[in-house]
């Protein structure tokens, strides 16, 4: 089959590789019909995630048709259409049974590696480094899906791929980001990053009761999208001081909740500050550039909540713990526990409350994956979300 393979920094290639096979009795093999490039795939593309190997198949947002099931999978049949959540979860361990699917205690065979870096290991992910499992990803014609009796959600035939594909990651991730804000109605929520996850977090914040949503980004087309498609008030951080502007916009108080949908490759409008973290990152003195996180913490109102759904990998510098502690902020975070939300959000899609496909801007063939990565990275042609069709 053909698959999108990581071949080093800023080098992905679509290569011919062997077809996947059933390795465990609870596996299924899916013929991928649609798959997307995630913002977090760019961290791999840029070489910031440790323990990648040349030849690794990328991709953790995919859906398709079941073509093979292991002997222990009794809920799926060949021919079923499924969306596959990006975390791999067994459903049997304490983490899974308490809804913390991305922290599955059994799905990372390389947990020993992750423990060295993170203290304890989270669960395994598709196509996201060897430290997080060494699983082949879904930007391919076929994909092996472990614990297929737990993760994949069946999709009725009347829903087209694009409306449900983003249930695999960005929609639940944005939704969880808003849910972690603990909204009870009437809040002001600020969202850093108006990419796919950020846009869906803005929409989710409204779904969960926010009264106002503010979008922070620097690309005018993304801010326009946030304004037009997600109903957010735009804020361009290259034009204003974000902390000041947010103070101004919220009657001096600050947003009730701040969502970091940017993560480890943040950008700062000040060339000096940007250069400082960029240099430290290059010298491996820190792994992540936390510009958005610093701003989110400093902007949040006293007693508010900072919700981190942007991906971070390791260590950051100048973390404003004083602001966090002295002002009684709550910091919440996590890789999305997708399995917890798929059914709920599929229902919302079916009821017509939201159509997450509004973030999709580009549709390419699988063979054009390298173009898709480069286009997404350069933000060419107003790119927000690239979907690859096998």
């Amino acid at each position, binding site marked *: 089959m053909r*698959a999108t*393979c990581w071949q080093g920094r800023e080098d992905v290639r679509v290569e011919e*590789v*062997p*077809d*996947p*096979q059933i*390795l*465990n*009795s*609870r596996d299924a093999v899916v013929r991928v019909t649609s798959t997307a490039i995630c913002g977090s795939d760019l961290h791999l593309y840029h070489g910031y995630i*440790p*323990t990648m*190997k*040349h*030849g*690794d*198949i990328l991709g953790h947002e995919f859906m398709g048709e079941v073509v093979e099931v292991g002997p*222990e999978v009794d809920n799926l049949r060949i021919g079923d259409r499924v969306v596959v959540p990006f975390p791999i979860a*067994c459903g*049997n*361990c*304490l983490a899974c*049974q308490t809804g913390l699917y991305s922290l599955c*205690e*059994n*799905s990372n*065979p*390389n*947990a*020993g*590696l992750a423990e*060295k*870096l993170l203290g304890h290991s989270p669960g*395994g992910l598709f*196509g996201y480094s*060897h*430290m997080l*499992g*060494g*699983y*082949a*990803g879904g930007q391919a014609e076929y994909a*092996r899906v*472990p*614990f297929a009796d737990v993760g994949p959600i069946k999709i009725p035939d009347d829903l087209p791929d694009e409306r449900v594909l983003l249930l695999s990651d960005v929609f639940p991730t944005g939704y969880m980001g808003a849910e972690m804000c603990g909204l009870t109605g009437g809040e002001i929520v600020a969202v850093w990053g108006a990419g796919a996850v950020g846009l869906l977090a803005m929409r989710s914040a409204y779904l969960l009761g926010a009264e106002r949503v503010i979008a922070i980004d620097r690309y005018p087309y993304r801010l326009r999208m946030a304004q037009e498609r997600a109903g957010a008030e735009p804020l361009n951080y290259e034009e204003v001081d974000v902390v000041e502007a947010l103070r101004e916009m919220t009657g001096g108080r600050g947003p009730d909740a701040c969502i970091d949908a940017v993560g480890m490759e943040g950008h700062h409008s000040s060339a000096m500050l940007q250069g400082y973290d960029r240099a430290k990152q290059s010298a*491996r003195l820190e792994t992540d550039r936390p510009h958005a996180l610093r701003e989110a913490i400093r902007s949040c109102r006293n007693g508010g909540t900072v919700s981190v759904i942007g991906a971070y990998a390791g260590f950051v510098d100048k973390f404003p713990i004083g602001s966090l502690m002295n002002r009684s902020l709550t910091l919440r975070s996590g890789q999305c526990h997708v399995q917890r939300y798929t059914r709920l959000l599929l229902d919302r899609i079916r009821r017509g409350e939201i159509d997450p496909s509004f973030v999709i801007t580009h549709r390419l063939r699988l063979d054009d994956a390298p173009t898709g990565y480069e286009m997404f990275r350069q933000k060419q042609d107003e790119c927000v979300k690239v979907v690859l069709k096998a």
Partner: protein
Amino acid sequence: MLWVKFLVRHFPEVIRVDTYMVMVRGAHDGDRARANGGTMREVPLDVPEGNPVGRLLPRALGLLSLGLGVAAVAAPERLARIIGLDDAAPARSAALRMTGIDDAVLARSVLLRMIGARELLPVPGLLAARRPAGWVWARVAGDVLDLALLFRALPQRRGDRRRRVAATLGAVAGITAVDVLAALRSGRAAGSRRRAVAASGTVTINRPTDEVYRFWRDFENLPRFMYHLESVRTDGDGRSHWTVRGPGGRRIEWDAELVEDNLSEMIAWRSVRGARVPNAGRVRFARAAGGRGTEVRVELAYAPPGGAVGRAVAQIFGEEPGQQIRDDLRRFKQVIETGEVVLSDGSPAGLATPQQVLQRPARPQAARPSR
């Protein structure tokens, strides 16, 4: 990649301790269990006795020392005749120099009795000590003195006496060779006990204690998640036969016996006397806080022998036995909770942590890998 290798290398979880420290660790575990209100017992995990052959030679040498020493002390003149040092003149000067006694016969007797006494010194150690290596080396030192004395005496003798001194010299040289061999062998045995390796690991399993206990109690299940084990065969009466796979296809086998078996609480086993790689293990099961499953704590200790077998054993158990136990326990948890060891494309055989660094790319392999 490099810095991950660096991390792996610089967080060594190796615990190199002798058996006494294993006991200390056991005691600490007991403290912790008490502090948690647990019911774990303070039974030291001691590496059992290895091959007893290593102590036969020192004992034989002890008996030889006893015989020679008693002969020299009780009948120095007769001994002097046998070894060809019974002539007056040359012996007189040597014995006189060494003892300061101006009487040839008396001086010779005193000298030989002193040698005899020296010969007797290491006897108790050789016969009774648990680690006789030092005593055997004391014998070697005595041999060297004797050889020096005889070398000096040889050119001063003629005829029959010269032949007898030469024969004695040959005999002492032969004994010296045996002594050196014995010293090296018992030193290695002692060294292996000093090098005894102990490691422990713990994991919490989302299943009731009795179920987890029952799975482990069937030792034949262990190779499903302990990858260095090739097989464990049990017979009815608490004995089991263990086989591990070594590098280059080398197999190492031993018999083990059940030492303790407390229902749903603890299982302890150890190799039977005479195993090439003496080892012991203990696993304890306790209800996790809040009833959230079962805490499993495993302790293993083994005494690698010297030589090729020792190197093979070291490779099997890995450079980081602690890490290996954690990897084994992770697979144990996978098997109990999900039904089997979880595989990924990068580690289709479920690799140990040191191998995870060097694993294959995350893509399907051409043929289904077999373990």
